[in-house]
């Protein structure tokens, strides 16, 4: 399959799922009504639902999916390891810690965007710490070790916050937020996440050639004029901005960044550079599909997106491992 054909198919899937996401929901409007309400703005209640609830939700699903897919592909390419995922460098858990502290202290209730802003601050602190710990040279081992240490630290503080929680309601609020969801989000969330994510996407999209060269190892890539230190800096800041913003608006959503590049790798001839745009589209499709699924499977119970993703993602991943194992023997 040629690359342009692959991108065409993935784009069509994303477009179809985006429309489906707009049209599916508990309010149960007709398709014609929904579309005309969205575009023309007639019919007050329908317009309100379409424009203020479903459109931001569908947009956020695309944005979060692109961020996670792109970050996963970039990290796997940089570390030359198909098991890398965005959570590895500690940004996800640090953003979650920021959000959880905001929930615990009541800062989250002080204004509408206090929660995502706190999460972004958490992500920023973790990146600064990561770059400080990992040192100036472009190595990957120190990066992984520093990421694991930061993840563990953020996890410990998360547990501490839960431990010291004043009442069970606060605990359940925190736990439910951490499960990850896109319900009840507004355009404010889109507007706060989008600029940060776009910064991240721009940085990650520029990595293609460097990641391709890294296929031959760090030394060969450096000899071909790739500045490894700068490549790593762009990768870390790019992943932190996109995943930090995604976690800030949607909570922790796993497996997208791990599974999507893994599925799509064979269709791009395993080239890490080409895998970046493919995984961005694939991530958007996967999050859109999962967000539609949580509305269809248990419409009354508020099934969390992150939970569903893990339930689908883990067996999918096991299947991939099984197939890889068969290829190797």
């Amino acid at each position, binding site marked *: 399959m040629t690359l342009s054909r692959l991108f065409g198919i993935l784009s069509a899937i994303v477009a179809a799922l985006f429309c489906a996401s707009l049209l599916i929901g508990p309010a149960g409007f007709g398709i014609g009504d929904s579309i005309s309400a969205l575009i023309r703005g007639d019919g007050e209640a329908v317009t309100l639902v379409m424009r203020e609830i479903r459109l931001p939700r569908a947009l956020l699903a695309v944005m979060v999916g692109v961020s996670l897919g792109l970050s996963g592909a970039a990290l796997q390419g940089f570390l030359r390891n198909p098991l890398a995922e965005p959570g590895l460098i500690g940004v996800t858990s640090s953003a979650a810690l920021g959000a959880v502290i905001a929930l615990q202290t009541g800062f989250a209730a002080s204004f509408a965007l206090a929660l995502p802003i706190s999460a972004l601050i958490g992500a920023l602190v973790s990146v600064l710490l990561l770059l400080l710990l990992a040192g100036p040279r472009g190595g990957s081992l120190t990066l992984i070790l520093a990421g694991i240490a930061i993840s563990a630290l953020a996890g410990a503080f998360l547990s501490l916050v839960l431990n010291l929680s004043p009442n069970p309601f606060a605990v359940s609020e925190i736990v439910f937020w951490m499960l990850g969801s896109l319900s009840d989000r507004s355009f404010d969330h889109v507007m706060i996440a989008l600029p940060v994510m776009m910064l991240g996407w721009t940085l990650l999209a520029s990595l293609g050639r460097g990641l391709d060269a890294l*296929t031959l190892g760090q030394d060969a890539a450096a000899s071909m004029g790739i500045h490894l230190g700068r490549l790593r800096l762009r990768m870390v800041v790019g992943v932190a901005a996109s995943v930090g913003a995604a976690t800030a608006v949607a909570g922790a959503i796993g497996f997208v960044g791990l599974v999507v590049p893994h599925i799509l*790798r064979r269709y791009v001839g395993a080239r890490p550079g080409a895998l970046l745009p493919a995984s961005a589209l694939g991530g958007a499709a996967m999050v859109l599909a999962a967000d539609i699924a949580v509305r269809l499977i248990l419409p009354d119970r508020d099934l969390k997106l992150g939970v569903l993703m893990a339930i689908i993602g883990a067996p999918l991943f096991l299947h991939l491992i099984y197939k890889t194992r068969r290829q190797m023997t």
Partner: protein
Amino acid sequence: MTALTVTDLTVLRGECPVVDQVSLSLQAGEITGLIGPNGAGKTTLLRAILGLQPHSGTSSLASLPARQRARTAAWMPQTREIAWPVAVETLVMLGRVPHLAGGAKPSAEDRAATARALADMALNGFETRAATDLSGGEQARVLIARVLAQETPIILADEPIAGLDPAFQIATMQIFRRLADQGKTILAALHDLGLAARHCTRLLLLDKGRLVADGPPRDVLTPENLHRVFGIAAHVMETEHGLIFQPLEITR
């Protein structure tokens, strides 16, 4: 014409010099073999010449901006790494990375260089196969082809022929010969002193980080040097096929 000049190059590991005050200059058209026992500092010297290793002293390559250096010298590391199952042709095309403008697609010239490199290493018919599925020797040929595709005036290679069958060892040295005849400069770390004696125009002998001999193979592979540096005795004979070198026994 001088292609590469290195002056007082020193690399320290802690207090201990791994490469100690090495000065040399390479002319265009030379195939130079870098020889020495394990741990003599061959890899470190090559990496420092390229500027991939922190060092003191100067190297005319290391002082170039990264992109210009990549168009001047190609480097083949000793570790043969192929991280992803990419097609052989794609992998060899990576040698063109230093020549591509930002975001540009490979030009006809890039494709031609890739095709020449594939043909040189007898890889026709392998183009679409996943590089990771090939045997170790075939992978080595693919990686040499990547270096050739870079089409640089200087080639630095660390053990380029280790693990190849005899025919491809000779073929690779002959390709280096042809490139040198076109005016390129080749510097390769070699362990096979027989091949080094026969195919190199010049040998650099490295011992404990110091350059202890530099000259044509017959002047470097003397009994004293072989005993002092490698601890071996060898049969060295000038024949109609060139210099023949056969290690015989350990002398210490």
